[in-house]
Structures are given as C-alpha cells and as structure tokens.
C-alpha cells in the first residue's frame, strides 16, 4: 500500500521513535514514512516491500528497501537488529498474523502496528445497511481489497494477550485523524499500538 504524506499515524509513530534509532518499516510502500522519519527524527531506516512499483519508488526516494514477502518471514534480518519495527496499515493484509508479529519482535526491540478498526461505528453501520464498509481507512471495495484479515481493537488486544505481547502504548484516531479517548473500539477508525515482549 502506498503511504500518503501527512497521514495522522505517521506523526504518532514519529513521536515514539528516538533520533538515531534503527527502524525497519514492513510494507514500506514508496518509503514515505521512512523518509519522514529520516528527515524529522534522523533515524537509520530500511523498508521491506513486495511490489515492483514500490521498490522502484522507494529507491527513487533514496530509501533502503529490501524486496521480500512478509508472509515468508524476515529471514534476512538478525535477532534484535532494530529498535523499532513498523507495520503501518499492513497487518490486515497479512495472512500469517501471529507469524509476522513474532518476527517483528524477534528482529526488533519494539513493534509499532497500525491498522483500521473494523468495529468503527461507520463500518458497523455500513454492514447494518447491508454493504461492506468503504472509508478513509478502508479505501477499497470488497472485490479489490488487499485486506485478508478483518479485526477490531478488542480482537487485536485479545491476540496480544494470548501471545504474551505487552502493549506499551495505544493511540486511536477517528476518520479525520483526531485522537479518540473513550469508547475507542466504537469511535476509533485507526489504531496505533506500540508493542514489546518480555525477554
């Protein structure tokens, strides 16, 4: 998926990352987030992408990008090689959900995961109206969507709990990118989590 500059989760992610950190962005698209982090936080960054067009765009953006398939794991990366491993709006497109989360915390100290919340009230209303949701954070028709996993904040947190992952921070945004602080599973369109695990 292609990142668009000015996406609200970028600023949240940037705030969690310290200058000079080593960052791996999985599904980095054309490298916009990494470029943002390099420019604003002085990080050292690498991306992983599967699409040829994005590989070309990321290289054009001057970003380190490794062509690979997240479904096959992160074999080329050593244990704890990164401070942060970012998976921005991509988890819902990955079939091996547990596998990628485990891999993220194998190669990185912390994982930063953002995803669209399928329980967002507009999405629920859309389904009640009989149609699959299409929104700012779910911008696809059902027949052309790259998304293969449909889940909510509560679902994700239950999985983290089952996997023994620690949620260090969570930010939830509405469709306009404004922070949501209550009834997050109902009022939040996009969630950003900062995860770690006991080692």
């Amino acid at each position, binding site marked *: 998926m292609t990142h668009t500059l000015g996406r609200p989760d970028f600023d949240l992610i940037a705030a969690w990352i310290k200058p000079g950190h*080593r960052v791996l962005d999985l599904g980095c698209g054309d490298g916009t987030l990494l470029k943002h982090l390099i420019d604003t936080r002085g990080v*050292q960054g*690498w991306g992983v992408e599967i699409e*040829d067009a994005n*590989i*070309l765009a*990321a*290289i*054009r953006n*001057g*970003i*380190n*990008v*490794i*062509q*690979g398939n997240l479904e096959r794991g992160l*074999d*080329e*990366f*050593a244990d704890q*090689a990164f401070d942060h491993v970012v998976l921005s709006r991509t988890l819902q497109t990955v079939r091996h959900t547990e596998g990628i989360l485990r891999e993220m915390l194998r190669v990185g100290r912390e994982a930063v995961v953002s995803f669209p919340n399928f329980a967002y009230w507009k999405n629920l209303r859309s389904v009640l109206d009989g149609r699959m949701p299409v929104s700012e954070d779910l911008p696809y028709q059902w027949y052309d969507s790259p998304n293969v996993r449909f889940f909510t904040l509560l679902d994700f947190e239950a999985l983290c709990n089952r996997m023994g992952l620690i949620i260090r921070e969570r930010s939830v945004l509405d469709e306009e990118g404004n922070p949501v602080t209550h009834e997050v599973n109902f009022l939040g369109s996009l969630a950003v989590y900062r995860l770690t695990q006991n080692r």
Partner: protein
Amino acid sequence: MPGQSVGVVESQRAHFDQPLHLRSGGVLPAYDLVYETYGTLNAAKSNAILVCHALSGHHHVAGHYADQPDNIGWWNNIIGPGRPLDTDRFFIVGLNNLGGCHGSTGPSSINPATGKPWGADFPMVAVVDWVHAQARLADLLGIDSWAAIMGGSLGGMQALRWSITYPERVRNAIVIAAAPKLSAQNIAFNDVARQAILTDPDFHGGNYYEHNTRPVRGLRLARMLGHITYLSDDQMGEKFGRELRNSAFSFGFGVEFEIESYLRYQGDKFAGYFDANTYLLMTKALDYFDPSREDNGDLNVTMARSQANFLITSFTTDWRFTPARSKEIVAALLANGRNVSYAEIGLSFGHDSFLMEDAHYHGVIDAYLRNIKL
C-alpha cells in the same frame, strides 16, 4: 531503447611494470590492461563508475568501433546519454581483466621471459588480483574513489570484493546476479567444463599455441554446458520446446532438435574466438571466490569491512546464482547496518537476465544511480 548509444568508442592500453603479487603466490612482473572509457571525468574526479565483466566479457562494454559498426559493446543497452549509466553525468570505465583474451595480459600473450605465449605458465589469477589490478588502473586515471562499481555475475563478485578490499575507494557497489561464493553445484558445472578442455587432445597441457592448434572441441563443449546454466528451463522451453529442424525424427546423432542446433551454434561461435586457457582461469577464479574465507566463513565479519552503499539485484529465474544467494549478501550487509537495497527482478531469461533490457530492471539501476551524490 530509451536514451542513446555512446556511439564510436576506442580502446586504450595501459602498461604496468610494478610487479603484481597474486593470491596464488605467483607474480606477474609486468602486464598490460586494455580498457575503454565513456563520458567525461569531472574536475573533482568523483563521477567514475567501474563496470566489471563476467566470465567471457571484456573491455568493450558500450558503443561500437569506427571501423566495426557491428561490434557493439556487451552492455550497450544500459550505457549512454539518457540511459541508466548516463554518460552525460558519469565517467564509465570498462576493462579486460588479467588472464583475459581480449588484449589484457593473459595466457595467450607473449611471456617476455621466454618470447613465447605464456600458455600453462600463466599464473592463476583470483578475483582479488583483478581488483588490485583495477585499483592500479584507477590510480592511473586519477580516480581515488569510484562513485560506483558495478557488475553482473562474476562482475558483481568483483564489485563485492572491491568493497571489502578497498572500502574507502568504493562509494556504491551494484552487485547483480552474483553470490558470496559458489555452491558445490556451481563448482561441479565449472569442473565439467574444464574437463572438456583439459581432456581435448589439442590442449597440449595448455601450450597449444606452439602446436598451432586450439582445443576447440573442449571449449565448444564447455560453452554449451555453461550456456545451459545461463538460461532458464522455461525460457528454453518457450524458445525451442521440442521443435525439430525437420518435421520427422531422423534416428541419428546429427542436429535434430532446435535446441541442439542453437547450443552447437553458440558453442562453435564461442570456440572460434575465446581462449581455452582464459576459460580455465576464469572458472577457477569463480570457484576460489569466497571473501569470507579470511573470516572463517563468517560473511558478516567480512562485510563489516565494507563502507559502501549497496544495491543488490537478482533474477527470479536465475538458477545459477539464485535470489537466495544474493540474499546472503543482503543479510550480511543488514547485519552490519549498511545502506542496502535489494530488488528481485522478475525476468524469464535465467542468469543471462542481467544483460537484458527491461524497463523495471533498468529503472531500478537508474533510480539508484540518480541518487548518488557526486
């Protein structure tokens, strides 16, 4: 083809009389290197790209000679004004490696000590020896540090070796369709090719020049075998299938299938101009290549010596040096926190894909080179 050819080019020759001590323990007291350059070296001498050749390549990388308009360089499609190796911006250098048979000192050159061709006496040369010789050519041209060193296959291995041996002289290394060392299968293919040459009755222990003959049959077989490994099964199937030259079987050993015709033609063509001793040397240089050997096989330790930024590319249908082999290099660079990008290009031409013109493949090289600061 976007961009233009560099047009008419000339080759040059440089003589070096400082002895070169080789990896094998041998010494070359003096030697010549033939080379070509395209574009203009800038005042800061910061825009030079070295293009290293693979097993059968040479210094004629791009353009054509005034008196030989059909003799076009082997990587012409990527070099020239408006092409990825843009001669409006870069100064490109290509050379024929030591041990070669296209003008640089090699087994078919005259050994000054005897007045006869070196033949079997030519010392074994390794990739690191080529790199040292190339460094002397860089000194001669006044190039302290290359903007990029680039190559496919054995050429990629030279780029990799440069980044380890002269880390301060390589700002970018573009390593295409290569491997950090050969596999047992790679070595096995090379040895069958060598055996074809070594057992040819016309080989005469490597001194066939004196007998006014050449081990053409062995060299032809070696090339036919090699050629199979450069192509992909799919592409061969698509191009030749089981097509027959005539419509019916002839139940003999002559040329029947189109693939036989093609391979024999390629073998004959190659055996007509290439030197068998050079072929032997080049395949041994491939077999010996393993920079991690200096570090007990730990490529991560070896690549820690590099300082360059890297672009690594492989081809999905390359079964000679598969994408997995390129990823070994990528992993070692990542382990050292190096700047590296890796593209796995979907082209159907097997190992030979690196010579093909493809919008995405050339786009990746172009995008990478455009970001190089001079």
